[in-house]
């Protein structure tokens, strides 16, 4: 898998546009940490015409956020521009300090951050925060600023804007908060919008509306947009030009349609092949056949949480029934708050439930879960965040040995070590990875280790709670490969929790769609995706980026 180091594709291969919004030339950025400076972006070039959208695509650590920060003057104090020029509407900004940046911020460049909740002051009403941004740019009285703020909220599609303006951030949903941040970003009437993963913290249906809003603003206000994303499908759908970054270097650049149709660099080719939305039939030949007995049966499962205010009850799961057939991959999909993780935790014996019956491999679970898992050797849960699931002080080897020791499976230390070496090889980890701490492994290696720890007990069922949602597409594809290989090897059954419908379409045999704790639809994947019955399922499927193809 060697990758030829292609010279950064020339970015100036388009005809001179009416006006250039951003021109970056030969940009090198380093981060200084302690005694060392590490080059994270090298030789980055970009030319963006006014009114166009450029998508900068790359995996985590590729330097895409650093590029966005450099263009918007938001590099942290230890981030240094070593060489190169950045021009924003003809203005050379690479040497600017904070004072020189100030007139550009908001007025020329608007910035939409990734995580909406942590980007707003939790103690201020959102209307006041928008009005603050307005007053930075226009000489208006506070009450006028407030009126403009309400207009802006209308503009970004907030219903009942006057009322919402009085809300605090925690009272609004993630999508509404992202709209408010966009309102703040456009309050100074900028000409360039920089959106750093603006939807990666949001559900797919919300993601679609936010991207639609950015498109609409771009058209109506004539904005140029720099869209940072890890999701190729979004880039394909929303951008005019595409830049693919890897390890701080440009691997491919050009008009989006051209790059997608004829990728030149083999890294880009692999990236496209690994994106589930762009290759839905990749695993078609490895899906399980029909038949088999149910290994998990859930009937009428109900679970309510007391609301924080203490006055009401929230139904996390309401009369949920599902059945997982042996040897299949059963996907449980839904947006945040749909109850999919709660269901997984109950089935795994990690949470209590109020009513209904849950039967796992013939054993009926009691409504109160046990402090120690009695079913450890038959059913295992893989956590979403593998880093959090490992004791940070233990080596991977020690963590993998632990289940053998506590279940008394291998008595001797030598035998345990041998079992650990064997399982590491099974999940494709080098033996030396066992001696490392979890924090010293990459995200994909950690998830492999988590799968290894669950498999060392030789369970028959694995519950996977969004096992790839924190991983890059190419790593995700490797983990999915691994899951298929392990299923073929050990005859496993998977209950796969996910919000990523394109991934589910690619790998699952059966799917159950949850919304607000209720089962909307359940059945074979091809059935549900080609002929969805519930309106909610239709909406979910339509929201998949690139799903229109």
């Amino acid at each position: 898998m060697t990758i030829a180091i292609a010279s950064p594709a020339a970015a100036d291969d388009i005809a001179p546009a009416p006006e250039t919004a951003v021109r970056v030339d030969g940009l090198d950025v380093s981060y200084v940490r302690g005694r060392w400076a590490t080059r994270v972006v090298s030789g980055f070039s970009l030319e963006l015409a006014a009114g166009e959208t450029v998508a900068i695509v790359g995996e985590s650590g590729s330097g895409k956020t650093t590029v966005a920060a450099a263009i918007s003057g938001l590099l942290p104090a230890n981030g240094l521009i070593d060489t190169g020029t950045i021009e924003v509407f003809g203005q050379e900004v690479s040497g600017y300090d904070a004072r020189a940046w100030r007139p550009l911020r908001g007025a020329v460049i608007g910035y939409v951050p990734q995580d909406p909740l942590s980007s707003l002051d939790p103690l201020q009403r959102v209307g006041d925060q928008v009005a603050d941004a307005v007053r930075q740019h226009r000489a208006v009285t506070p009450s006028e600023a407030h009126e403009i703020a309400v207009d802006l909220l209308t503009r970004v599609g907030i219903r009942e804007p006057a009322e919402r303006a009085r809300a605090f951030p925690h009272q609004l949903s993630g999508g509404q908060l992202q709209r408010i941040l966009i309102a703040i970003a456009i309050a100074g009437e900028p000409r360039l919008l920089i959106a750093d993963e603006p939807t990666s913290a949001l559900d797919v249906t919300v993601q679609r509306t936010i991207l639609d809003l950015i498109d609409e603003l771009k058209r109506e206000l004539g904005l140029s947009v720099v869209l940072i994303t890890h999701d190729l499908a979004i880039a394909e759908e929303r951008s005019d030009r595409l830049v693919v970054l890897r390890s701080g270097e440009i691997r491919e650049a050009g008009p989006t349609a051209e790059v997608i149709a004829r990728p030149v660099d083999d890294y880009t080719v692999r990236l496209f092949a690994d994106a589930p939305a762009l290759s839905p039939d990749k695993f078609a030949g490895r899906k399980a056949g029909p038949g088999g007995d149910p290994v998990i049966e859930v009937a009428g499962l109900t679970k309510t949480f007391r609301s924080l205010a203490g006055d009401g009850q929230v139904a996390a799961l309401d009369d949920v029934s599902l059945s997982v057939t042996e040897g299949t991959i059963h996907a449980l999909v839904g947006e945040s708050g749909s109850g999919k993780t709660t269901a997984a935790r109950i089935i795994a014996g990690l949470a209590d439930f109020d009513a209904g019956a849950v039967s796992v491999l013939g054993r009926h679970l009691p409504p109160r879960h046990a402090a120690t898992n009695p079913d450890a050797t038959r059913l295992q849960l893989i956590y979403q965040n593998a880093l959090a699931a490992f004791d940070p002080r233990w080596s991977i080897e020690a963590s993998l040995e632990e289940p053998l020791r506590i279940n008394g499976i291998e008595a001797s230390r030598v035998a345990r070590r041998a079992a650990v070496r064997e399982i590491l090889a099974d999940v494709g980890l080098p033996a030396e990875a066992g001696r490392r701490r979890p924090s010293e492994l990459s995200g994909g290696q950690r998830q492999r280790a988590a799968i290894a720890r669950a498999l060392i007990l030789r369970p028959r069922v694995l519950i996977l709670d969004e096992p790839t949602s924190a991983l890059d597409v190419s790593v995700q594809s490797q983990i999915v490969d691994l899951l298929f290989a392990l299923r073929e090897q050990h005859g496993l059954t998977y209950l796969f929790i996910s919000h990523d419908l394109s991934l589910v379409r690619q790998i699952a045999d059966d799917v159950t769609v949850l919304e607000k704790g209720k089962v909307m639809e359940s059945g074979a994947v091809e059935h549900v995706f080609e002929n969805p019955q519930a309106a909610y399922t239709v909406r979910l499927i339509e929201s998949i980026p690139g799903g229109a193809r």
Partner: protein
Amino acid sequence: MTAVLDAPVAAPAPPPAGARTPAERPFWLNPGDILALAFAVFLLVAVFLPQALSPWGPLEASPGNTLLPPSLEHPFGTDYLGRDSYTRVVHGTALTLSTSGIAVVIGLVIGIALGSLAGYLGGWVDALISRVVDVLLAIPGLLLAMVIVVSLGFGALNAAIAVGLSSVAGFTRLVRSEVLTVRELTFVEASAHLGGTRRHTLLRHVLPNSYGSVLALVPLEFGGAILSISALSFLGFGAVPPEPEWGLLVSEGRQYITSSPWLALIPGVVIAGTVLAVARLSTLAQRAREARA
């Protein structure tokens, strides 16, 4: 397309994007840290080989040379019996540091035991331990230590035990709050999910991960223990003359504070220096740990 893998194999990590260049001097080249390190080395030698640092014995009186001011021959001066004050400080190091160490260990062990039980078991165990801790925290530590040492009897070891017991409440409360946080972490649940019993998860996962902030408190408590034990000795509850315990040296020097102030002042400065050095070294150790991680 060669990129699709038949057998699942972890991809090698992407190579670093650029060369690293030195940009700053190493963190340990800090003059304060070097001073603290040198002082700690001096104290260690004083503990194990006090005779190497001084030609005299700690009890060697010289009636002709009483209450001499600091000089090249007697850097800390001499006391009312003509004993070399520097020698007495050096020979007192072992006693002072060991009693402080005992005090900290007592507070740490009992505090961890009570705190982890309260935090992990919760319910009435937590309620009982926490209320007792509240009461203990309401009493000034030195006062509590004095009450305990009076009931145990005077002496260096009893003073150490008293100071240790009086610091139990603080440790307990800190450990409890840490355990409360750590026991909710995913890897603790993961261990239980793998079949680990409560005792297993508490001892193997919760406690080891609760030590961080507790160990950060240890040097502070160590400094506090030196001061408390010195205070008890100064008040006459601890080590008995003619032992060269540091608090006792200050106490003895107090009588000559107007004519020979160095007798009380210099051991006092040594006590303060030790506390500062220990605190400094603990932050240094913490930084080194973070730099390695």
